[in-house]
């Protein structure tokens, strides 16, 4: 139990670092053509390939009207996906941030991510769940 709770904490906070892995800037997203092709709930797995961040984390994101949303109150998510499936996201919290780019296709997606400071980087995959 001790370690599970520790894990939960790490996940909650690490999202601030890692979750950003999957997309671009809000401004960029809004500037692009809206698409609802990818609207829905997505489960994203982040893999750290470089640095001392969590080896892998899974988190949920919702895409609505092409804009990426998250229900978490503890960090900010900004990003969008365009009709081609290109996606860009920035996640920030408490002065830390990470960004990710990649592509969605059908019910799957993949891409790369890195923290703004370059501390950690890796890949991400996504699966549509609803």
């Amino acid at each position, binding site marked *: 139990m001790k370690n*599970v709770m520790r894990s939960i*904490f790490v996940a*909650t906070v690490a999202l601030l670092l890692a979750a950003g892995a999957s997309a671009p800037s809000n401004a960029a997203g809004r500037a692009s053509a809206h698409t609802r092709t990818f609207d829905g709930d997505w489960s994203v797995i982040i893999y750290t390939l470089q640095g001392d961040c969590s080896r892998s984390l899974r988190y949920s994101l919702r895409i609505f009207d092409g804009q990426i949303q998250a229900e978490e109150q503890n960090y900010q998510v900004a990003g969008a996906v365009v009709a081609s499936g290109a996606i860009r996201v920035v996640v920030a919290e408490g002065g830390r941030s990470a960004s990710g780019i990649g592509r969605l296709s059908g019910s799957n997606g993949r891409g790369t991510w890195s923290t703004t400071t370059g501390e950690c980087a890796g890949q991400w995959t996504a699966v549509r769940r609803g």
Partner: protein
Amino acid sequence: MPPRKPFTAAEDQVAMISGMPDARFWADSETDYRKALPPQPGPWLILSSGGADGAFGAGLLNGLTAAGKRPDYAVVTGVSTGALMAPFAFAGSRYDAALRKAYTEVTAADVFEAGASTGESFVDSWPLRDFIAKQVTPALLDDVAAAHRAGRRLFVVTSNLDAERSVVWNMGAIAAHGGDDALKLFRAVLLASASVPGGFPPVLIDVEANGKHFQEMHVDGGLGGQFFVAPAALMTATSDYRLPVTQLYIVVNTGLQPSFKVVDRFAPTILTQAIGMAVPVDTRLMLSLSYAVAKRSDVAFNVASIPKSFNTPSKGPFDPDYMKALFETGYEQGRGPAAFSAELPSYPNGPTMQPNRIEKTGAN
């Protein structure tokens, strides 16, 4: 979240699983406990809570097999991560490979999903639910059922949050019922036993009392103790209860040393560190009780715990490299001559508060 169907304490007291009257009993019921025990004494294996540190116990069991020191335990009990490994330990060494795989290849992504509040918890545990469904197969259930019919017993503990009481699930009896309902309940109990309240969503379990159907809320079995040997009343220093055991083996799947951290002013962090402090304390107290019970029962007391020397860092939750290292530590301990100790783990004898003796860690 939708409102729950109300029920009374009296109804919950007698609630049962439909069609499976022998599926469980209250952990504080001495009568039901005695009734559920195997007909013959034998070695017991007790598996504690510990999250990712369950890799230690999984490695230990594999090492015991390698050393030819793995009996068919008459009773296996599990709490939280101990519950997750208990069916494999109970079913025998042919499941060692599955146990190894589960505790060395699992990642955080296989356990939880963050980012979407469930309204009941910080994260969602659907990945763990799916992981359990893959691991707990109908074939495993058949093997557990066969061992149950042979007189052995597999117990898993959950916490009934509505009643604020621990529940012991007779997993062999559930397995012996067979069918989809048994498989579904078996998996749900394992998920509940490992669902830290607040962190993971609770598991709602369908029950029936006097013809009324409702759902109980079950969470991590560790709330009622980090491992289970016998009802608390039988474990007290004033009880004269003697365990019907030939050898008592306890595997502690959690570090017992304090873990320093400057705690962020953030609720999950504070809760995590608080639990991290409480669990080793509870574990040590329970070990002391178990030691005393074993002594008065003239039963050999054996405990295996993570060695103080283990210091591999964990890069986040369920870090496969950390878990592999811990598995190997457990494996080597299990395979070696000192897999278990007959004595309680020693308490740290900390230094006094001497301001001038603070160790400098940097250039300053």
